[in-house]
């Protein structure tokens, strides 16, 4: 019998109700076909295979101002399907305070060298699963700069970049060519009253006030801190602002002199050449920032995928070109143009680097320092 006629005959029987639906599907083979279709259709649908596996549709990053090229995040989304949700903070205390309070929703954040051990000992960050970050090649990093990413032999942070803390000077307005922290604070309280910014951050603002007297950037000595507080209180009426997001004030022409990190100095100088970046001769801070994964990360896999993506030397090179902080990764540096690698803002002269100090965990967690900055701000 012609299969088509047979099919029509069975269909009529089904329509008249003389056979059941199940019998009809069975004898015509439609049931098998449907079962096969049902199992295969999702696989047959066009579906993109993400290189990093399926990491969800959102990765949350907590970081610093002016610290990433937004185009790199777009590229990450293109490659993984996950959007990057960025929140910006101006001090390491804020990272710590929020993680301690819980419920941040961050998958990655960017703590500075001297805070990694505190986060680790409070159980707020997890040991990095290095297998998930193949782009972080420890052998290719500058060992001196990344050592605090490791606590008791366990790697907690993958180095992002390093830098220094100096001050920005608008040379079109400031004619004294200041080169020391002594000059910085003296000019603040005289000629450039109302034109100076300092960080909203105890470590750098108190640290560089300590340098005025030639004390250590990391001093926790009661008397030395009292001296620093006296200087800060005297300088306060002369400040334009206390803020860690000071680029707008410089770009607007409101601020002419201010405590500044490498990358902000580089970005300001790139756009406004008369703004230069100076390291105080007395010293100050050298630092390294790390990517770390909070234990509370809701999208751990996504966090690792983002770190791995940003540490890809190609991507990292575009990041460095954008934010102007030197990389710790020799593979990234090979991809950078010579003018960046010889840039005096990013790579200060050896005699200026020599007196710089890495911040210490004790400096960061000292409650007396926190209270001094709070009093200074509330004064």
């Amino acid at each position, binding site marked *: 019998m012609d299969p088509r006629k047979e099919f029509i005959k069975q269909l009529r029987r089904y329509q008249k109700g003389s056979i059941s639906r199940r019998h009809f599907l069975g004898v015509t083979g439609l049931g098998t076909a449907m079962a096969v279709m049902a199992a295969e259709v999702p696989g047959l649908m066009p579906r993109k295979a993400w290189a990093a596996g399926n990491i969800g549709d959102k990765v949350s990053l907590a970081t610093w101002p002016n610290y990433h090229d937004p185009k790199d995040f777009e590229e990450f989304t293109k490659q993984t399907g996950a959007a990057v949700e960025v929140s910006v903070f101006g*001090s390491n*205390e*804020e990272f*710590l*305070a*929020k993680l*301690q*309070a819980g419920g941040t929703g961050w998958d990655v954040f960017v703590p500075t060298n001297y805070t990694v051990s*505190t986060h680790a000992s*409070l159980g707020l960050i997890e040991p990095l699963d290095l297998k998930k970050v193949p782009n972080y090649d420890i052998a290719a990093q500058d060992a001196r700069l990344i050592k605090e990413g490791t606590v008791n032999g366990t790697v907690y942070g993958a180095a992002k970049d390093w830098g220094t803390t100096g001050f920005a000077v608008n040379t079109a307005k400031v004619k004294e060519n200041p080169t020391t922290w002594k000059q910085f604070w003296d000019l603040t309280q005289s000629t450039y009253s*109302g034109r100076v910014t300092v960080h*909203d951050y*105890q470590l750098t603002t108190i640290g560089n006030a300590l340098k005025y007297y030639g004390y250590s950037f990391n001093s926790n000595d009661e008397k030395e801190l009292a001296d620093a507080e006296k200087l800060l209180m005297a300088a*306060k009426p002369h*400040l*334009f*602002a*206390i*803020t860690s997001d000071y680029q*707008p*004030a410089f770009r*607007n*022409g*409101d601020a002419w002199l201010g405590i500044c990190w490498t990358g902000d100095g580089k970005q300001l100088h790139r756009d406004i050449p008369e703004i230069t970046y100076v390291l105080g001769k007395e010293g100050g801070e050298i630092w390294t920032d790390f990517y770390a994964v909070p234990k509370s990360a809701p999208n751990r896999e996504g966090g690792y995928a983002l770190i791995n993506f940003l540490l890809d030397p190609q991507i990292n090179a575009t990041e460095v070109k954008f934010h102007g902080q030197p990389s710790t990764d020799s593979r990234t540096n090979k991809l950078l143009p010579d003018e960046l690698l010889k840039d005096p803002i990013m790579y200060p002269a050896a005699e200026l680097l020599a007196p710089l100090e890495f911040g210490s965990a004790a400096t960061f*967690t000292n*409650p007396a320092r*926190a*209270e001094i*900055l*709070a*009093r200074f*701000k*509330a*004064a």
Partner: protein
Amino acid sequence: MQGPRKWDWTAILLISPSVAIFLGLLVMPILVVLVLSFGERAEAGGYQAAFTFAQYANLPARWAAFRNTLTLAPLGTVICLLAAYPLAYYLAVKVSARNRLLLLILVIVPFWTSFLIRTYAWIFILGGKGLPALLDLIGIPDVRFINTPFAVLVGIVYGYLPLMVFPIFVSLERLDKRLLEASDDLGASPRRTFLQITLPLSAPGAVTGCMLVFILLMGEYLIPALLGGGKVFFIGNALVDLFLQSRNWPFGSAVALSLVIIMLVTVTIYLRVTLNNRGMRDQALV
């Protein structure tokens, strides 16, 4: 004879959601803050159980923040009132019904944009390349606005004006216009009519507006942070610093509780003084 008192289940059912909200979101948190305020800061920040009055003894360390809040909040409220009253009067009494709707919408429109963005805009208006540059052009050099108490006050008046306009507008609109005619018929001058009829009858709206603005201003954080440059410090800013920078929860709790107490006392005194007349108490929205 009435039987033994019965539970009114309908009433209990109706008020239970609001009771739950009050207990869970107001009473409980205040109790937590009260307990924290007698504690100590833990080594790495946060809270550590203790019983000490040290946090309260340390309150004078935030004197400047209290002083700024307690001067700029009332000042801002008074300026809002003086600026809002003529506007509300115009909207309620003078303008034609057709234009009134349009003008009211214009008062509301700013609310369609985030308050943060609108305050950010003031940074550029008051910053070096904004108004000061304009003043420089007409021969007034070196004027600075941004990051001064003045800038904070501008932000306050700008941000809170609508909250003052609406209650006053409502009380003026409800005002029985026949009273004005009667006053006129009895030979009162327009000035006297305003002072003896309009003003007293619109006072409940003004009282409500002042309460709304003042209470919100006492807890203000954003405007001083953005337009004060971290230099014009409110208690709200001190609190954010204590919880998010120095992680001193006990001291933060003591400061927060002091703010609540100061607010309760000032508001009570304020209501006593302004609502001493019974007619007004019935009409005020508070």
